[in-house]
């Protein structure tokens, strides 16, 4: 066997090997057309090598004519798939150049089969054999067709295309790729010029178009296998990082989940299944998830999910799940939504954290706070019991006296209808008055849950002044109120806020107990804080001021300056205001006495805080 046969066959085999390998790769990753184009161009290069070998060994004109015509098929495939590959893989090369090459090459192929013999020759008259490298090789001798120029033009365009693409890649900063791939491309495109030169009889070498491409194939094969190796590495890293993530999720008690919204399927880790009380192999959809949520929290969760699907915001929701055994578990769910090309929500991914313990601690703390506040209210009510009895006995006294007056009128026989009507009117209104006092007292002593109402602070101030009116009178304290108009509403528990004010007012009265009667003036002010985000309330007395080194000290539990005080009032007040996301502080006045201030976020700001 001649060495030419051996080398050309080996070249074809090498190209085919690459082609086959990348064809298999493409089969596994259909969307990655790069592999297909590469495989096609490598196959075509193998075919060209085979054709060339055949031509070099050809001895008859007829055979040569046939080969010269059909070699244009793999050449077409090679050119087209190579250009497509370059554009896709390197993301370089001008579109108009590429399309010019495609169309020119197609035109060449069509003309090649229309004209006699091929696009290069109108007729092959003879086969010239010469010795090359110790082997006899055949080249055609015949009449050249002018259309053959088209083929050369397409070769020129290919060269320009290659140079242009290489420059683009180089400028992009990917110099290694530009040198390797671009260099091999230009090298191949230049070497390909031996074909017209041989046909024109200028050069005396065997056709080796197949080899010009081998270099390119080899370089690209190297690049692609780099990519494949990198992909394999990434896959391995991904696997490791997934393991790490799972480990972290496991140890953090996280349940990871993914909801395919289009097909309504939910995937969730084992941990997550246990968390929600799902069976290990149970098929999950959104309805099943919904049914696991505590009935009281379902609306809340649905609203959160809907909001996320509509706005694309991050998902965050704290809710309870009701396990099959009746146990309640608190979940902190977080996640985000992904949209498809059409802007429709496609999937949600996220994690759920079991926060039962934290929530229980929070609830416990809140319960303690509520109990403390209640205890303090009961204590205050005890201190105010005189006032309360007074408030209640006054209307009761009026009712009794009115009713007994009426009885006497009846007994006397002289019934004045107008007077009777007045008596009954008084009885009715006094009864309502008494009922109102009892209602206020009951609210005050109630140990109910903390309410969140939108309320006007000025009303709280007025209610408090009603509640402790008698105490103020009996201590000869007069009250000046400066209540700002048009204040925004605040969110809070009306009873607890009343409690804070009662404490501050009672303290202020106590502070002024030793003052001259005319000096016992208390001022309550409401207004908007400087920034405008909060409402501020201040209670000013004209007593002796705060006589401790650190004003803050008075807010500590069990700190008291009163003989009978427990020292809980102010610390409870601060806890209450803190729970309302406000601040409570005290200052000594420039002239005399002290002022206690507290702020409460206005409604809109409070809502913002709750959401973030």
């Amino acid at each position: 066997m001649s060495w030419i046969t051996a080398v050309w066959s080996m070249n074809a085999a090498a190209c085919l090997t690459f082609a086959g390998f990348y064809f298999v790769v493409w089969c596994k990753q259909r969307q990655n057309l790069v592999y297909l184009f590469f495989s096609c161009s490598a196959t075509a290069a193998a075919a060209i090598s085979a054709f060339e070998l055949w031509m070099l060994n050809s001895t008859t004109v007829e055979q040569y004519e046939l080969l010269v015509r059909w070699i244009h098929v793999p050449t077409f495939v090679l050119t087209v798939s190579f250009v497509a590959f370059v554009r896709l893989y390197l993301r370089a090369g001008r579109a108009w150049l590429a399309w010019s090459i495609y169309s020119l090459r197609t035109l060449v192929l069509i003309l090649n089969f229309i004209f006699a013999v091929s696009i290069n020759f109108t007729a092959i008259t003879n086969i010239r054999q010469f010795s090359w490298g110790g082997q006899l090789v055949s080249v055609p001798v015949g009449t050249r067709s002018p259309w053959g120029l088209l083929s050369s033009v397409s070769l020129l365009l290919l060269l320009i295309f290659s140079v242009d693409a290489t420059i683009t890649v180089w400028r992009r900063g990917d110099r290694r790729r530009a040198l390797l791939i671009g260099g091999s491309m230009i090298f191949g495109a230049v070497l390909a010029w031996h074909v017209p030169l041989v046909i024109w009889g200028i050069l005396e070498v065997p056709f080796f178009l197949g080899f010009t491409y081998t270099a390119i194939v080899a370089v690209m094969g190297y690049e692609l296998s780099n990519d494949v190796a990198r992909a394999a590495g990434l896959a391995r890293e991904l696997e490791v990082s997934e393991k790490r993530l799972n480990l972290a999720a496991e140890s953090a008690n996280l349940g990871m989940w993914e909801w395919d919204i289009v097909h309504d399927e939910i995937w969730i880790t084992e941990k997550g299944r246990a968390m929600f009380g799902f069976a290990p192999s149970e098929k999950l959809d959104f309805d099943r998830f919904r049914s696991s949520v505590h009935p009281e929290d379902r609306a809340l969760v649905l609203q959160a999910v809907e909001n996320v699907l509509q706005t694309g915001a991050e998902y965050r929701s704290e809710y309870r799940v009701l396990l099959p055994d009746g146990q309640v578990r608190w979940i902190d769910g977080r996640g985000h939504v992904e949209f498809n090309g059409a802007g429709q929500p496609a999937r949600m991914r996220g994690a759920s954290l079991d926060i039962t313990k934290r929530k229980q601690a929070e609830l416990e703390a809140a319960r303690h706070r509520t109990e403390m506040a209640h205890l303090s209210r009961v204590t205050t009510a005890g201190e105010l019991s005189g006032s309360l009895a007074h408030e209640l006995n006054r209307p009761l006294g009026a009712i009794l006296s009115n009713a007994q007056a009426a009885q006497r009128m009846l007994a006397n026989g002289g019934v004045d209808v107008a007077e009777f009507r007045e008596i009954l009117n008084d009885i009715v209104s006094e009864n309502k008055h008494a009922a109102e006092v009892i209602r206020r007292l009951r609210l005050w002593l109630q140990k109910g849950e903390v309410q969140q109402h939108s309320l006007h602070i000025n009303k709280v101030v007025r209610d408090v002044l009603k509640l402790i009116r008698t105490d103020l009178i009996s201590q000869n304290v007069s009250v000046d109120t400066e209540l700002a108009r048009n204040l925004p509403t605040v969110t809070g528990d009306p009873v607890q806020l009343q409690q804070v004010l009662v404490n501050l007012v009672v303290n202020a009265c106590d502070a002024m107990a030793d003052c001259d009667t005319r000096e016992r003036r208390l001022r309550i002010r409401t207004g908007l804080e400087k920034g405008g985000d909060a409402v501020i309330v201040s209670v000013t007395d004209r007593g002796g001021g705060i006589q401790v080194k650190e004003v803050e000290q008075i807010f500590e539990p069990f700190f008291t300056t009163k003989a009978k005080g427990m020292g809980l009032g102010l610390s409870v007040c601060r806890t209450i205001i803190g729970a309302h996301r406000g601040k409570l502080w005290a200052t000594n006045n420039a002239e005399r006495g002290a002022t206690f201030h507290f702020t409460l976020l206005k409604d809109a700001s409070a809502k913002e805080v709750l959401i973030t």
Partner: protein
Amino acid sequence: MSSPLGPTVFIVDDYAPGRRSISRLLRTAGFAVTACASAKEFLAQYDPETSGCLVLDLAMPAVSGLELQNILAERGSLLPIIFLTAHGDVPKSVQAMKRGATDFLTKPVNDEDLLAAVRVAIEKHRALRREQAELSEIRARLATLTPREREVLEYVVAGKLNKQIAAELGTVEQTVKIHRAHVMQKMRAQSVAELVRLTQRCGIGGSV
């Protein structure tokens, strides 16, 4: 509304429904009633000559019940005060009673209790006024005595005999007898016992 003929019950209470109901009750029971919303209003129209009593609310803004009681005492008023309060504050009630309040009632007050207290108070006022009138009459009689007759009077009510008095004053028994007759006449006393009673009410006698 005060009647110059019968006694008048004054009511001072800042709480209008309470004031109205007590007024009605007392009026139905046949009393003349004058109701005031504050101590100031009461003082502006109160005539010390009017007989009756005062039903006074303890806890009032500005001038409290106890303060009004003080003001009246400083003016030498004899008007009996019945305190009426919605809350029985022990220290305050003690204070009120010490300063001579007739009664201390808590709201809601039963009609019988209130009426009884009012009747007692009115009667007390009447008695006090009568006593005061008698006292001023006795003082007027005492004022007519000469210094010598006054000395003799003091010895007489101290239980001394004419002879002893004469010895004390350094005079004769006859002179003492004449002074004594003048004293009995000016004091309009029928007996020594009556003289002793009269002078005792003015705080004279017993310790010479």
